């Protein structure tokens, strides 16, 4: 049984649906990458899973729980976590307070997890008293990832984690994502750097107009001439 299974999900913000039957299945060990043209419903899919928009039909099952239309304060304790693309840090809070907010739903001692995050991103420990708004783009992305990991999720969802970052940081963020996955956290992410992301994806989903076009492992999709031609720019 997959960790999360999104089945024939239709949904949107109230008007015409943006998702017209999306299917996604991820195992605990997977890195899933959603790619596709602008407006294909990639980010919308993540938001639908995280209860940020209305799912009208279809089901989303996470570890046996039906979670369609559940709100984040129910989902985070279940083991889901989400890093939005923009405005993903609390700019006026210190780095450490940002991380603490990620653990808001936890009632146990969080110092161990905090240390793990600082080991993964040593620069954050250095700057832990500084307001997150004063950090560079790459460091902010680390804070955002760290915040999402503080709840000890089983599934980490990231919306374009590489957006707006310099190539050096893109590589670094991808390396961190792989590290997190090796530590036992399933990943589901949306990426514009499709070729680069699919290269390390164990599951790839090509969406277009709110529907799945192709599904397979990352390398398979890259090798598929039709995917390459229509969606990866030749």
């Amino acid at each position, binding site marked *: 049984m997959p960790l999360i299974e999104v089945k024939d999900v239709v949904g949107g913000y109230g008007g015409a649906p943006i998702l017209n039957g999306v299917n996604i299945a991820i195992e605990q060990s997977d890195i899933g990458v959603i790619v596709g043209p602008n407006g294909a419903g990639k980010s919308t899919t993540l938001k639908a899973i995280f209860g940020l928009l209305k799912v009208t039909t279809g089901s989303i099952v996470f570890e046996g729980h039906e979670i369609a239309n559940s709100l984040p*304060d129910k989902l985070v304790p279940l083991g889901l976590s989400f890093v*939005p693309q923009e*405005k993903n840090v*609390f700019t*006026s809070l210190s780095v450490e307070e940002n991380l*603490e907010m990620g653990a808001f739903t936890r009632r146990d001692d969080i110092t161990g997890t905090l240390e793990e995050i600082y080991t993964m991103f040593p620069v954050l420990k250095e700057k832990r008293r500084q307001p997150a708004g004063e950090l560079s783009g790459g460091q902010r992305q680390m804070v955002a990832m760290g915040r999402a990991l503080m709840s000890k999720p089983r599934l980490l969802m990231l919306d374009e984690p590489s957006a707006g970052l310099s190539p050096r940081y893109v590589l670094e963020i991808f390396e961190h994502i792989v590290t997190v996955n090796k530590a036992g956290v399933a990943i589901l992410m949306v990426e514009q750097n499709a070729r680069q992301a699919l290269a390390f994806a164990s599951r790839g989903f090509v969406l277009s107009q709110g529907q799945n076009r192709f599904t397979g492992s990352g390398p398979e999709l890259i090798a598929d001439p039709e995917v390459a031609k229509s969606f990866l720019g030749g």
Partner: protein
Amino acid sequence: MDILVFFINKVVIAGTVLGSIYALGAIGATLIFGILRFAHFAHGDMMTLGAFFSFLIALLFYHYGIFLPIPMGFVVMPLAMLLTIGVALGIDKTIYAPLRKRGARPVTLLIASIGATLMMQGLIRLFFGTGQYSFFDYGEPKTIIKLDMSWAGSRPITFTEPQVLMVIVTVVLVLILNYFLTATRFGKAMRAMADNADLAQVSGINTQLVVRLTWVIAAALACAAGTMLSLDVSLKPDLAFNIILPIFAAAIVGGLGQVYGAIAGGFLLGFAETLGVFNWATILRPLGNVLPSWIVIPPDLSLVPTEYKLTVSFVILVITLLWRPTGIFKGAST
């Protein structure tokens, strides 16, 4: 020295008192703006309502002949706070929450809060009429403290017991609030939600609970400010409605959503208003003997007449908005 004492009595003490009231009111207004993103116009009437709750409970004690060494208004304040919190939560549940649920825009909520203002003022007038009341009309004395300054001159430094307690209570409340916001889980969540409500929701923060907590804090502080104001002047149905505009000016000058900004803004405006109506002629009068006779010091040299005290706040507000549009502490702009 007499002149300095006069200045302390007229400006330093009065400014501190007014500043404390403005600061406590502005903290509540700024917190509500930070979390709920609208200007809560009924905040002044929440202060008045809190004062009337304190007054009613105090009357009960007076009725049974209970008098304490410190003014009853301060003793019963925690009880009145609870009642005010109850009313605030009730108003939120019945008026603002349904509007929020339908995705009402801030301006709709603002208009709704004007409705709440009229409703609360009407209810208060229904029960208490339009007259004035004082906590000290029922046998409790208002202790006046005079600091002997005979070593320096003939005038003593004069203030009342409620004024001293007012400053102490303000400091204590601000310290508690500061601890809450910087050291507790829900306090940090409140700052997080004011900073970025969407991300707070995504982090799994119970935003409904944060909203309720915001009302609890704002109402408690409003009750304290209203009660202390009514202990200093007198209690009437438009007690705090008259100062809601400078309170918002203080919140905006400090930077909307910024608690420390609201405190700074409150004291800044409190002192500015007091200085604005201060009659500088009293200080300059001794120069009259020295200056050539063709310079006559007029009897009234205050910057603005007392009735126009509020204009001082608005002048400062306009200057601040021109110089730093988001306030001294860089608050929210929308």
